[in-house]
């Protein structure tokens, strides 16, 4: 069976392109979620009190020390036996629990949170201690110290690392294709099984991911340079 450009262009790329929104939604939503959850976790990782630091460290170790695939399976197959069955069937969450998308999103978010938190912590560590002392001497609350002094500087410092992490996140979304989510790779696999043609779907998926990663790199480049202009 020879490689058919015709099939790649007509039969493979159109369905793969309609699956791009799924991949992008998974990436963007889990990036947003992990940015929100990553801040408290980063603060926990940097906390002086053990009872706050240890839970954060254990969470980060569990998420970063085990493969994402195990976490996805754990949530997709295991969540059902942890949640009460009646609640799963009749509650606001029931429609979501029937759709693998939300399991994938949850797994991606929980995993990514740990990586984002470790990056944010390294940014927070780079801020001189005196700035916190100055903020508290001026009578700033913890919250406004965080949002107006610490986070802006930390984010500036770690932006390149976060941009890199965003690309890794986009790439790890393919793992949810194993729990019947039809993202770009999931769709490519479906075409593979339906048509019994292997080469074109996989090459098509590779093309789509290269273009996606290229686009993201192209978007982040100028932002990175803009942030670095005062350095």
């Amino acid at each position, binding site marked *: 069976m020879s490689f058919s450009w015709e099939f790649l262009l007509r039969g493979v790329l159109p369905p793969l392109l309609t699956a791009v929104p799924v991949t992008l939604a998974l990436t963007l939503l889990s990036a947003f979620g992990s940015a929100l959850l990553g801040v408290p976790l980063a603060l926990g990782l940097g906390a002086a009190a053990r009872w706050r630091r240890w839970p954060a460290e254990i969470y980060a*170790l569990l998420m970063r020390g085990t493969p994402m695939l195990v976490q996805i399976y754990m949530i997709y197959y295991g969540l059902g036996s942890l949640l009460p069955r009646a609640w799963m069937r009749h509650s606001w969450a029931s429609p979501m629990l029937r759709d693998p998308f939300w399991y994938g999103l949850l797994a991606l978010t929980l995993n990514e949170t740990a990586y984002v938190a470790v990056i944010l912590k390294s940014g927070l560590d780079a801020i001189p201690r005196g700035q916190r002392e100055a903020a508290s001497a001026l009578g700033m609350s913890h919250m406004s110290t965080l949002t107006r002094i610490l986070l802006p500087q930390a984010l500036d410092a770690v932006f390149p690392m976060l941009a890199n992490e965003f690309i890794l996140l986009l*790439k790890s979304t393919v793992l949810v294709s194993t729990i019947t989510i039809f993202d770009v790779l999931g769709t490519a696999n479906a075409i593979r099984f339906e048509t019994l043609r292997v080469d074109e779907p996989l090459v098509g998926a590779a093309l789509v991911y*290269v273009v996606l990663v290229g686009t993201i790199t192209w978007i982040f480049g100028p932002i990175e340079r803009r942030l670095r202009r005062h350095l």
Partner: protein
Amino acid sequence: MSPGDAPLAGYGDQLIEGLLLTLEVSLCSYAIGSLFGLLGAAAKLARWRSVRYCAGLYTTLVRALPELLLVLLAFYLLAARVEQFGVVVSPFAVAVMALGFIQGAYITEVLRAAVLAIPRGQREAAEALNLRPLTYLCRVVAPQALRHALGGLGNIWLNATKDASLISVLGIFADVLKVSSLAAAATKRYVFFYAVAGACFLAITLVSMTLVERLRRHLGRAYLT
């Protein structure tokens, strides 16, 4: 007590064999990745632009393509093509080569940065002392670069152990994750068996972290840090 009542439901031996397979795949892919990484770093630091360009293409492509997709491409595209020419490659070799190819791109970047971190003056000093290029490479560059690269290489090793779990998707390897999935599906104890799989990977991670830390101290012993 029948095997079905035991905590591991009779899957204990298979799990241990699976863990060994996962370790084998990790170690072999990392070894091949180191080879790719050495070649890649040498190519990136080469004098010829075309060679540097090829190495750049290699690292860019690997960083743009998802790992699972690369593994699938290796199995269904490359291995199938090679077999058309009558060369039979074992699935283990294909998996290890594919994962090694991925690790190699990241190792390339780490090694390149480590070599670039060595001050230029040392090269001039080596020339002034009339050291042969090979001696300069082995006695001056390698020991220092290794120390610079250790952190990055350690991280890539941790990724290599986790990426080894990708082969479970193919369905032809009984690695620790695949065995856990089978056991979980057979016994309906999903949380337990996936926790077992997670614990195996976590154990590998923790042992590796301890060893890397020891190695770091050993290599840094002359620097009093």
